């Protein structure tokens, strides 16, 4: 088996592969009052069996409401939720075949950690020995073996969170819901836990959805990520898709740390395509560098928003030049902020950069790295040489 091979997941999903399906789901709080809150709008979401999907967004975007609707703690205002072939939105949580790990730990105080986890297996037909084995296995995975016989009030927040996670994962369920599963954990622990958790989910083909506001977590664990904002699903795609072909400006600037640099620009087309950033540089490219569909899309727009990721800004070469505002070296990479069009343009370099603040530095942005967005709709027009999907 070679080391380098294409990403594993098959692109097509046949009907029988879909485990969870949300169709046209709305959630409206305070529906009959003067100011209803539309927390989730017309959400369509399909999750294949054994897939891990992350619901990613800032606070208030609707991701937690969505999770709670799937779990059954909130009613669905409109639409339907189907799991394993049956409609679950009218059912109470206990009858849905769903296991959930909560953000607020929610362990039962009078039971030890071990008993808490074992409690999830109470209604199964397993023998005491089998239960103990499963508990031990999951405890090893989340590294809580030393505290199995302690009570929830005597362990730290991070340990409580891991215990809650263990309790959700020890069961066999059709769907696993995790609400910010690692929010309280130290970075060190998160990195190793992520790897092991992903392995477990893959091995057991556990269909899972987890909610997070942390991109790294979403990136690390998920097969696909659903970016939500304002109750609306912005884009549901793999991490690579989101990064390289963001559907709109929101996804483009949300995904990625440091965030994508975006600028308003006027566009001139012809033999040369020139993006003139307002109060800023001109980026000129030969028209033929772009694919035909992309050319057509860009040519339609005399004004656009262009974006370039910090990692795609090449320093030390190129026709453009700017003043260095800050130069921060972080051990394994440097973050350089350049003064462009009155704001910061951040470039990330894998090596140390010599130029200090105040000095000038050349930079280059290749056409294959430019993302163009429609100035009015903020939808993506092109990514590099290719047109964005409509």
């Amino acid at each position: 088996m070679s080391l380098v091979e294409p990403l594993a997941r098959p692109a097509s999903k046949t009907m029988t592969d879909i485990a969870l399906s949300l169709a046209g789901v709305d959630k409206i709080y305070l529906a009959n009052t003067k100011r209803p809150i539309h927390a989730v709008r017309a959400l369509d979401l399909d999750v294949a069996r054994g897939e891990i999907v992350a619901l990613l967004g800032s606070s208030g975007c609707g991701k937690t409401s969505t999770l709670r609707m799937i779990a059954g703690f909130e009613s669905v205002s409109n639409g339907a939720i189907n799991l394993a072939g049956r409609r679950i939105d009218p059912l109470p949580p206990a009858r849905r075949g769903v296991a959930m790990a909560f953000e607020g730990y929610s362990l039962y105080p009078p039971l030890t950690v071990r008993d808490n986890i074992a409690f999830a297996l109470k209604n199964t037909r397993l023998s005491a020995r089998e239960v103990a084995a499963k508990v031990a296995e999951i405890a090893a995975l989340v590294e809580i073996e030393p505290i199995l016989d302690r009570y929830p009030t005597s362990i730290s927040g991070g340990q409580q969170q891991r215990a809650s996670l263990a309790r959700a994962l020890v069961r066999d369920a059709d769907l696993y819901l995790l609400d910010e599963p690692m929010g309280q954990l130290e970075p060190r622990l998160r990195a190793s836990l992520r790897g092991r958790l992903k392995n477990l989910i893959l091995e057991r083909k556990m269909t899972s959805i987890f909610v997070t506001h942390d991109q790294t977590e979403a990136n690390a664990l998920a097969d696909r990520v659903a970016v939500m904002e304002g109750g609306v699903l912005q884009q549901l795609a793999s991490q690579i898709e989101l990064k390289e072909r963001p559907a709109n400006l929101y996804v483009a600037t949300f995904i990625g740390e440091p965030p994508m640099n975006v600028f308003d620009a006027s566009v001139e087309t012809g033999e040369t395509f020139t993006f003139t950033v307002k109060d800023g540089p001109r980026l000129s490219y030969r028209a033929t560098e772009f694919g035909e569909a992309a050319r057509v899309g860009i040519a339609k727009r005399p004004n656009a928003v262009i974006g370039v990721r910090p990692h795609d800004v090449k320093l030390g070469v190129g026709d453009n030049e700017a003043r260095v505002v800050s130069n921060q070296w972080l051990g394994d990479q440097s973050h350089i902020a350049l003064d462009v069009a009155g704001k910061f343009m951040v470039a990330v370099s894998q090596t140390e950069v010599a130029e200090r603040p105040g000095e000038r530095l050349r930079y280059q942005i290749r056409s294959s790295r430019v993302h163009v967005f429609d100035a009015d709709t903020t939808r993506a027009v092109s990514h590099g040489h290719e047109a964005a999907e409509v």
Partner: protein
Amino acid sequence: MAQIELNRLSKSFKKNHVINDLSLSAEEGEIVCIFGPSGVGKTVLLRLIAGVEEPDRGDICLNGRDVTEAAPETRGVGIAFQNFALFPHMSAYDNIGSALTARERDKNVIRIKVERVAKLLKISHVLQQAPRELSNGQKQRTALARALVADPKILLLDDPLRNVDAKLRYEMRLELPSLLKASGSTVLYVTQDYKEAMALGDRIAVLIDGGFAQIAAPSEIYRRPATLEVARLFGDPTINLIPGRPDGGSFAIAGVAVPLGPTYASETGRACVLGLRPESLKLSSQAKPGAFPVEIIAVTPLNEKVVLLAHTPDGREIFIAEAGVEDERRAPGPAFAHFDPAEALLFDEASGQRIEPAL
């Protein structure tokens, strides 16, 4: 003469030695980041300097004056708290102005200064609002404005970006250095984020278990950490640590004698821990001299790098970070890892101290 001088400070709460025999000096205009894992030590240190807590032992000199016994209002420092600590019953304007009203009577002078710092921090449009009407980012900037408005010689910032969302935090991380340098104050900046510490600090004081494990420039701390613990705290993913005993110029990893070069030859037989940063490990599919076998378990593409979780044959977890691998995708399976000996770090197992390579 140093602007801030802390001399053998100690403070404990009920037998818990939160700060133990700490010494630190900061020059005028310097930004010193106090970094460490979560715990109360860093905040207590700032409180001692501000004067709202008293040290059990040791003394504090600010601006050349011994202030160990002095009341907080006489110390002339500006402070910004992690939880903002804005006065809820006052407008943002009055909050900021409170740092001036104790000494300045002239309302016009106060207005000019408050408006100037508000403009600098881009909160001029919310000055008349009460704290509860402000967003987190605006609250944080108001707290900063309050700290800066009186042009204090000494600025104490207690993790001011902690409660602010990721985007804004990154933006502030870019803006703060120039802001702080322009103010000319000597700054003590507390943070739990090592990237923030490296980005902002002229020097970093690493506080572990009540004491400073190392006080040095960021590059020094990253490249030549004083102890194992310091090495662990800087870097994401954390540094790989492999115990063993050097033997002549090599080190055994999973049974393979990996060359360390002649610089550590004198440590033969000593119980050591080898530190390998994830970015210094390189993968190949073929065995080569100096490479040890690993099994790749999980591949995690992050923003600008790919993090791989691998196991050595003896079951040890190893993190490898590969930068900017765009067109190749790695997959789980067997591989070989090697590194440049010059990038390796060696620590004494018992004490955790780093062993200097012989030249």
